[in-house]
């Protein structure tokens, strides 16, 4: 395995990045009459890893859903700059956003429960842009999560909670993302895997110049790979800053580093 890992590492499959980024400007969003996000702005620049912090119910997932087009903001705009071109994402359908290479690992996983692990992974490569990379991505996924290889013919629905979480992430990798949005990647994973997971995300990111946005509660692990972070409190950005500043912030101390 070691040998293969190194051989893989030499084999980078980068693509040119001309300041690709996603910009969220001043959005309001919510569910029905309830407004969850209030004037949120943020940005996600090529190659960086950004973490969204905030306690339960403050709107992290909602922000991610807005970017994906799953929740329509009632105000503000979301745009993507891709190879020098600006593409409005506001109002676009999820499928189209996915086809730009923005891939989401949602909370609640959303696997295909009756399809096997392998079929779930292959479905990840449904979008055309991912198809040429199937073999490589599959190899990466199986190497990152050997459990998936072991169980490649098991229906996804009968996997354990943590195994399903791995599969959800692996399937997103199969989609060959430019931007990977992950809602709580470490939920339900054993400590040994959490560390491993972040390592793998980092590895992937380096090899592929991937841009990552994640909502994550495991502050210590997340900040090992995150370049920057936002803290969301009651639907507003309470703080934005890079890793070192984040660590010092009183909200972080209160929520994550207390006691």
């Amino acid at each position, binding site marked *: 395995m070691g040998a293969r890992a190194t051989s893989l590492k030499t084999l980078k499959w980068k693509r040119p990045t001309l300041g690709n980024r996603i910009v969220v400007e001043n959005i309001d969003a919510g569910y029905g009459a309830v407004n969850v996000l209030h004037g949120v702005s943020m940005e996600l620049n090529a190659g960086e890893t950004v973490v969204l912090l905030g306690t339960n119910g403050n709107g992290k997932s909602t922000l991610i859903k807005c970017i994906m087009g799953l929740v329509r903001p009632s105000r503000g705009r979301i745009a993507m700059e891709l190879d020098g071109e600006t593409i409005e994402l506001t109002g676009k359908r999820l499928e189209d956003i996915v*086809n730009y290479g923005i891939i989401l690992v949602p909370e609640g996983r959303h696997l295909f429960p009756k*399809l096997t692990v392998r*079929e779930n992974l292959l*479905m990840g490569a*449904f*979008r055309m842009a991912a198809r040429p990379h199937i073999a490589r991505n599959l190899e990466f996924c199986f190497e990152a999560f050997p459990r998936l290889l072991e169980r490649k013919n098991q*229906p996804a629905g009968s996997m354990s909670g943590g195994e399903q979480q791995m599969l959800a992430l692996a399937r997103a990798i199969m989609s060959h993302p430019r931007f990977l949005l992950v809602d709580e990647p470490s939920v339900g994973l054993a400590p040994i895997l959490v560390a491993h997971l972040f390592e793998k995300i980092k590895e992937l990111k380096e090899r592929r110049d991937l841009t990552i946005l994640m909502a994550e509660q495991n502050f210590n692990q997340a900040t090992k790979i995150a370049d920057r972070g936002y803290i969301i409190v009651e639907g507003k950005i309470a703080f934005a800053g890079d890793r070192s500043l984040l660590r010092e912030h009183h909200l972080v101390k209160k929520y994550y580093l207390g006691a």
Partner: protein
Amino acid sequence: MLTLDLFVNAIVAGILLGGFLAAVSLGISIVFGYLDIVNIAHPAFVVLGSYAVYILNSTFGIDPLLAGIAMAAPFYLLGILIYRFYYAFFERHGAESLRGLVFFFGILFLVEVGLNITYGVDYRMVNAFYLGKSIEIGLVGIPYRLLIPFVAGVAMIFIVYLYLSKTFYGMAIQGVAQDSLAARLMGADPIKIKSVAFGMGMATASVAGALLIMISPIEPSMGREYIGRVFAIAVLGGMGSVVGTLVAAVLLGIAESLTSTFYSPSMAPAVSFGILLLVLAIRPSGIFGR
């Protein structure tokens, strides 16, 4: 009266019949098995296919099987249309599939009435040079009237199987009803995928219609005879398994054929549906069910 000759022929007849029944059930397997759409009108569409074939055969003398294949394209489009309609009025509102059942029962009436008004209720049949002939291989006699439906049915299932298991679109069809958000997250448009699948199911109805009219005379409400059978076959095979559909259909075909030959033809349905109950009691999700 158990002779080898009778036994072998009964088995062969059962297998042949099974291939045909599988063809009629295939659309249910796809649409009901994968999309969770209870298209109870499918047998009526098969009969519609038979009428289309009948028209082509009686006015232009086109071979029934070719006519059935030719009509697959318009049926595919019709399927897409029906699915879009179904989507707009049901799925979009998250209505449970049960309401769809009522909808499709309504459609079943409409198809029947349409045929009834246009063509009357007289029995229709087709002609082809090979119908009425049979080949003899040793003890076994195989009528073309059954052989051609069998071969066509099996071929159709094989093609659909390859499509579903070997292409991305096929896999998406398998997954889309399990979690349509998941499909969208992969960049797959569930409506498009379901349209294609529904269209495919409908296209099989046209071919199955050709096979049906080769085997027996048809009239507009004939599809009702098949409702129980096709759903039984789709479920017995295991929902969403086209290979299972073929196996189940052949199993039922053989069971009915053996019962007809050696016991009482009158008990054949009780035997085959009894087998269904038994299998379900042992394997609650059918033979190939996941």
